[in-house]
């Protein structure tokens, strides 16, 4: 077994185990920490796929930013030793049947699908230079419009979050 294959199995085992623990843990802070492990293992996937920039974004923005935000909100809204009730039996069965039937059908169709074994085109090396050029490019393969849209969206979200979470004056 080669090293990348070994890393793949290690990372996917971590992802699946910690995803299940994220939704199954009855203490909320632990759920958030398991989600952090899932996100870090996913960044490992991106390294395996040779997308180093995106792995960095995943680690800083997702694992660094969002998880910290979620942990803050958990500490603000619930007691740290609070333990959830078990979910109702019908809900549990519904969720598990979605997992088994939905996941089974999708996996079945996926494994029957013939993908091209080897693409005829040659891979481009993903350099920082190329990413910057395309992200702010206007021509073919340019993404300046979504880039500007997401900057406006983030501004709107920032204002909205402040307005929504603000304490009312009276």
């Amino acid at each position, binding site marked *: 077994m080669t090293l*990348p*294959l070994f890393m793949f199995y290690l990372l*996917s085992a971590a992802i*699946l185990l910690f*995803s299940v623990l*994220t*939704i199954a843990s009855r203490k*909320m802070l632990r*759920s*958030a920490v398991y*989600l952090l492990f*899932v*996100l870090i293992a*996913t960044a490992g*996937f991106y390294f*395996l*796929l*040779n997308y180093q*920039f*995106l792995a960095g974004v*995943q680690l800083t*923005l*997702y694992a660094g*930013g*969002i998880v910290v*935000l*979620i942990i803050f*909100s958990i500490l*603000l*809204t*619930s007691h740290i030793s609070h333990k*959830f009730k078990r*979910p109702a039996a019908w*809900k549990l069965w*519904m*969720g598990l049947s979605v*997992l088994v039937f*939905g*996941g089974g059908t*999708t*996996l079945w169709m*996926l*494994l029957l699908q013939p*993908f091209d074994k*080897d*693409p005829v*085109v040659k*891979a*481009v090396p993903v350099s920082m230079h190329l*990413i910057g050029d395309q*992200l702010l490019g206007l021509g073919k*393969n340019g*993404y300046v419009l979504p880039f500007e849209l*997401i900057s406006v969206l*983030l501004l709107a*979200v920032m204002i909205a*979050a402040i307005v*929504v*979470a603000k*304490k009312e004056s009276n």
Partner: protein
Amino acid sequence: MIHGLTIYHFLTVSTLMFFIGVTGFIIRQNLITILLSVELILNSVVINFLVFNRFLYPDQLQGHFFSLFIIGIAAAEASIAIALIINIYRRIHNINADNVNEMKY
């Protein structure tokens, strides 16, 4: 094929991760744990985009940029959701999805 890994390896993991997220969305009651399940779903979709990019169209970076934008929008979504959750907590003092069936009081 990259280092002996095929597209099926990655897609299997991301499919399972997606449906674990959907299951969590169904079985959990607390709003923040529902948000955690949504993050799992988004993350598996990002893996899908990157895998299709790398294995089928490696001469372009479309999946890469879509993933970048998905991560940005996920951050926006999480911050709005948390603002709403804190507002709800201030009004009714808990954040169970079962108790949030009325818009106001």
